[in-house]
């Protein structure tokens, strides 16, 4: 089971931004959501999650607010800023370009081996 350290550099940031694009969420929620959506492929530990959240916040892409969780506990909710939305768009574009390029390379390799 790959952990976040195996993720491509910067991919974790992209996953977090994408997750927060839907609705504001606290850290635990983010890990759960990513784990769920990726069908348990990505399990993100707190050791990677929180530095990434702080990094994104320091860059001004997300902002944090204290609020109450679903079971009425005090929790910190993160949400995307305008700059964060822009960043997400450009990162998704980059990712698409990158993955289709990798796909092309691999596709050719597969054809050649057949």
């Amino acid at each position: 089971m790959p952990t976040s350290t195996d993720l491509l550099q910067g991919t974790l940031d992209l996953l977090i931004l994408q997750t927060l694009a839907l609705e504001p969420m606290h850290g635990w929620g983010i890990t759960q959501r990513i784990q769920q959506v990726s069908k348990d492929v990505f399990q993100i530990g707190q050791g990677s999650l929180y530095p990434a959240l702080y990094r994104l916040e320091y860059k001004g892409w997300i902002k944090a607010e204290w609020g109450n969780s679903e079971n009425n506990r005090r929790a910190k909710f993160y949400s995307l800023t305008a700059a964060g939305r822009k960043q997400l768009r450009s990162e998704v574009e980059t990712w698409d370009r990158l993955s289709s390029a990798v796909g092309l390379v691999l596709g050719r390799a597969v054809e050649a081996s057949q």
Partner: protein
Amino acid sequence: MIAEFLTWVRFLVFRKKHSELDDELRFHLEQSIAAKVAAGVSPSDARRQSMIEFGGIETTREQCDRERPGWWAGIISQDARYAVRSILAHRWFSAAIVATLALGIGLNTMVFTLVNAVLLKPYPVPNGDRLVSIAGRNLSSDDRSLPFSYPDFQDYKAQASSFEFFEAVTAQPGVLSEPGNPPDQYQLVRATSRIFSMVQAKAFLGRTFLPADAQPGSAPVVVIGYNVWQERYASLPGVIGRQVHVNGQPANIIGVMPKGFRFPDNVDLWMPLLPILDLAKRDSRTLWGYGILKSGVTLQRAGAELDGIAGRIASQFPADKGLGMSVLTFQQRVNGGPIRIVFLLMLAAVGFVLLIACADVANMMLSRSLNRQREMSIRTALGASRWRIVRQLLIESVFLSTLGGILGLGLAASGIYWFDLATSTIRPTWILFTMNYTVFGYFAALCILSGLLFGILPALRSSKINVVDVLKEGTHNITGHRGAWLSSALVVFQFALTLVLLTGAGIFVRSLLDRLAVNPFVPADQITTARLHLTEDRYKDNEARIHFYDQLLPRLRSIAGVSHAAIASGAPGMGSADEQIELEHVPISNPAERPWISFVAQSPGYFDTIHLPLQQGRDFNQTDGASNHEAAVLTRAAAARFWPGENPIGRRFRLFDDKNKPGPWITVIGISANMVQELQGRDHKPLLFVPYRQEGWDNMALVVESAADPLQAMRKTVQSLDNELPLNEPLRLKDAIAEQLWFLRVFGEVFLAFALVAMLMASVGIYAVIAHATGSRTREIGVRVALGASRRNILFLVMRRGLWQIGCGLALGLIAAFPLTHLMASLPNGSLSSDPSVIFVVAFTLATVGVFACWLPARRATGLDPIRAIRYE
């Protein structure tokens, strides 16, 4: 972008509270446990599993911290506070380091200020960075500073497009005179009319040149310098419009320039350049050019353009064949050659001093790093990374070197002040020894780099320790082989560099002493000299001049207190003229093979005045030098050179002037003792003396021997015969010789000071190393003494390493010193001795000092009480 930047700034300034992250992490953990409980795990197991999954909180905290913009500033300020505490805690140790570095950095800043002023800084006028010196050059030789002619100048100026301004001057002495005011000789330039606007200079009083002033037939005008106005006219504002004589020609003073304005170099009087008489000829080359380059034009491009024009002119006028042009900065023109080399040598010398200082400090830090091993191990045990420890130690070093540097800055300022005074009479006025941003940049770089330089080795060493060993053991025993090796290498290196420096200084001092010891028979402190310039427009030929001298000499001799008076083309040691010689019956057809001689033209009584003993034959009499009575007195060395083993009296020779025309046959009438007439240079030509009737010059020196100062009376006597004749360069011969030797004196003192500082530092260095080594072997020495080792054994044991280091250092230094003597002896002004004995004297001195520095701590070791030594620690 802006929003992101603002966020960045916000977080740079405000920190998040640590509790925030803690709350967040706690919530995360609780959620994780809750999720596990919900999945059916028992609460206690869920908690345990979650804690294990969760991992270390501290690293997460640290990593989150590191994401903050400027997080490192906090760490650095922490390290800096720690460094300050540690510096203050070891006050004396820090003071020693700061003092050493102050010397090293101070000397370097001083010398760099000088080098910057002499070799880099532009001429201090607006647009000085584009101001250039323009001169002709010989295409077939290296000579790139030749004057050019006025017609050439007009062609260059009309055709060249590289220059915003292009002006020319011709320099000559200018005698300023007027009724009722004794004449003074000044430095005069005749300059093209825009010379002042080129450097944006405005008159202090009156006005500068107008284009109309340079028109032929316009009323002659002169602009005077501030110093002339002050000295000659007592700062009277009414001087504007005054009618004066310049070199006997009337002129009107139209302006006074501001204080310190001497453009281009040490000028007192400026007159417009009128293209009349000889100046209008293409082969009359007397002009020097100055220009301001258009912005963006390089020296090379301007030079190439002028070269191209020179080629076109040469094809039109054969007189200009083989001539090109050179465009250089002022520094390149004036301070090339030996001056440049000496200043760079100076920079190298102080660089060595700084290296020695750094080695000293590195050694001190090394020996202290042993005492700090415990502190370092505790910090390592508490989780400090090696990089963190190294960084903290380096910050400490840079702090120390900056402190030293600030102290050194004061030292540098006083050194610069001294050098400024010492060279004020010789250097061009436009060289200002002041600090500028370049110097401060260099200074800051020095502080930081030397801090890193001396800090890096000890820091790496003290961070590389085995924590457990150190914490378990005491502080000794870990000295290790490498630390000792390192500090020995540093000491060896110091002694080698010091030897090189001392050799350089020794060469200067030796040469200076050699020069001062020449001509022991001349009573230089009793002799006063001054030059008279009998210009052609007032003394039309040699007859007129001899008539003047013949009237003057008896009057000079009758001044009270004067014992002798004579006239010579140059006083002893003050230079001579050279001509080629041909002996009778030994014709030499190829002019290039004729030997050269130096000669002094003189009046009767000169030998008595300078007390030069005649060894054979007779002195000149009144008829010698008249037509068909041409005569000469040779020095012993000259006679031995031309007539070895023969009696030269009565032999004849003749001299060739610069147009290769032979003069009349001259008879040798006497032989004098040897004398040095040329203090500079090394290949002295054979010297001989001829009567002034034979070689009549328009510029001769009065040489007067007198117990009291005869200058006032001399001036009165001269001006009673000619009231427009100034006395130039009046000096005691002793001072005149000292001025000739300023180069050796000033640089000798400079290099000697550098070398002595270096020697002091090297001695302190070896002292510290031996003292530390002795200290750490106290117990061992105690055991040896108790077992019966003699004082001599102990002394040898302790000093052995020091002696080895000194020996190796000297050997290495010798290898480097020999090439240095060759380099210095090959300096083009060639007044430096290449005598290798200097090296050995210097090496012996350094060895003695070094052994003494070793012996001091070693002596203490021999006096140890064995009982106390064994119980030491």
